[in-house]
């Protein structure tokens, strides 16, 4: 699973590495940024994400109507100059709903990934750094959580808590915790064995200082890569829950919910199904492209391959 998403570097046409001045010390982050900028697919992914973020921020200014504004006379009308993406079964403007939907998808993606990242990092650090029975306990909890197919676990959590956008967000955060947790734990375990940690200990550095000055900064790169890829999958999971009626509730313009509401009109009004799906696909594609590019740029093993 580690490598399957990392194949894009070789899809890219090889460009010669620009000469870098020898006498200046280049920070690894800057080097990674250079590496990333050369990856056209990753840059394209970043542009898609920036585009959707901008759309989400300025939604009220570009949306021609309100997202729950009903136009009884204009039900299921096709794309036109008034309604770019057509209207749905209640006469609501689909373009407007997609623009507002970007807010919801990015909101759910951001907060569920951030939550999973914080909790996962915390648990992973505790498990990896303190070891013994704490590690055993936390690792087994991760094993159990990962033993359930993720979407099924999310469905179970929402089934317990009741369907709503907040509960869907919480469920997606929970299913992503063990992914970050395991990643951080394995980083901590491998860094802990490095000689410079031994040196730091020999110099009398305290555990907490070693943790914050050496171990965590060295774990940041893989966490960023995982967070980017998880952002995309979180958006897909939120749409899936919405589609099953377990996420956002009407009249919230959530993309997955829009799809399930529109299903029955697919024959007469295919645009009602086409555009929400395309939006999900595009934004997830953006995160996958950027995530792949970041992995190639930040993972030293992949560098210059």
């Amino acid at each position, binding site marked *: *699973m580690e*490598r*399957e*998403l*990392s*194949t*894009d570097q*070789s*899809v890219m*046409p090889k460009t010669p590495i620009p000469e870098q001045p020898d006498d200046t010390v280049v920070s690894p982050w800057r080097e990674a940024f250079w590496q990333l900028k050369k990856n056209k697919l990753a840059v394209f992914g970043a542009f898609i994400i920036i585009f959707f973020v901008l759309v989400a921020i300025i939604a009220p200014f570009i949306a021609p109507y309100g997202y729950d504004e009903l136009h009884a006379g204009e039900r299921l009308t096709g794309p036109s100059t008034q309604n770019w993406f057509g209207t749905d079964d209640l006469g609501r403007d689909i373009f407007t709903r997609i623009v507002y939907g970007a807010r919801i998808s990015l909101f759910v993606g951001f907060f569920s990934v951030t939550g999973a990242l914080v909790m996962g990092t915390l648990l992973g650090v505790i498990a990896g750094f303190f070891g013994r029975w704490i590690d055993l306990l936390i690792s*087994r*909890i991760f*094993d*159990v959580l990962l*033993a*359930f*197919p*993720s*979407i*099924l*676990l999310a*469905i*179970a959590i929402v*089934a*317990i*808590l*009741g369907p709503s956008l907040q509960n869907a967000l919480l469920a997606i955060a929970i299913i992503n915790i063990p992914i970050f947790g395991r990643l951080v734990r394995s980083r901590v375990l491998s860094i802990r064995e490095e000689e410079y940690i031994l040196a730091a200990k020999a110099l009398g550095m305290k555990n907490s200082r070693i943790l914050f000055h050496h171990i965590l900064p060295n774990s940041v790169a893989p966490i960023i890569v995982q967070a980017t890829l998880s952002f*995309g999958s979180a958006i*897909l999971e939120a*749409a*899936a829950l919405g*589609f*099953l009626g*377990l996420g956002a509730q009407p009249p919230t313009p959530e993309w*997955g919910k829009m*799809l*399930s509401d529109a*299903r029955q009109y*697919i*024959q007469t009004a*295919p645009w009602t*199904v*086409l555009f*929400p*799906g395309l939006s*999900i*696909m*595009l934004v*997830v*594609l953006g995160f*996958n*492209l950027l995530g792949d590019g970041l992995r190639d740029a930040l993972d030293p093993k992949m560098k210059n391959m």
Partner: protein
Amino acid sequence: MLAYTIRRLLLLIPVLFGMSIVTFAIIYLIPGNPARIILGDHATEKAIANLEEQLGLNKPLYIQYLNYISNLLRGDLGTSIRTNSPIASELWPHLAATFELTIFAMLFATIIGVNAGIISAWKKNSWFDYLAMIVALIGVSMPVFWLGLMQQWIFSQELGWFPSFGRDNPRDPVQMITGFYLIDTLLAGRIDQFWTVLKHLVMPGIALGTIPMAIIARMTRSSMLEVLQSDFIRTVEAKGTRKFVVIYKHAFKNAVIPVLTVVGLQTGTLLGGAILTETIFSWPGVGRYIFEAIGTRDYPVIQSGILVIAFIFVIINLLVDLIYSYIDPRIKY
């Protein structure tokens, strides 16, 4: 190898124990009185008391858990509240439907994905390589339920090639023997029905198989590229072996292990992920069974359905690991 197998089986015990706690806890995590929530607001006190008695909710927690475990170990998955029949017997036809769909989807995903990956690596940076990898990228980014809807629209409603829902022709239903309709129709000697069932499988199978196909193609490609750089490939080529044989026989044999791992892991993921595809195509699988149970607050079905799927998922992952260590003698445990 035997020692490794035993160790893995022993490691499975705490995971299974944890899984049973999670599914057991589902009913207690519901905010409020579970019996009241299951029966709705208009339930009488007597009905609630009866249901509590039936589910054993009025006993101490540890006794409830011990009962739950001992029932599970005896293969008793509980009783559905909605239909009042044992879940274990209700579950099998649904499970068979999901298996049939998953196997079909994985066959599709593996055959197409592996070959696309091999050719991509072989003709690296060709138009085929670019196209295949772009399709694979879009494949992993697409919501599976949207792909299913688009398929229904184009191939079923516009072109009329495939039926858009169900497993068989409801006016000429398949006589169930094993639960696998492709096998059942052949056992009954009904070739016409076999084709009908196969046609019903095509669209949900492709929808479900698209994401694993994309992942398998990317994995095969990167694994093949790595192998193609090794010295022994150069030696085989120097001997004048045909390129096709070099690629498919010598190179792929050495690139197959990570691919197999992905195939195994994806099979497990599909079992759980099938719920979306099953919803779109009205496929009477286990995902659908659990989903309908959520709608009717049939918690015993939710608990047992999820536990069974997770159990199969864990077993598949274990088998993948065991096969992995078996076929690659370089890996030592």
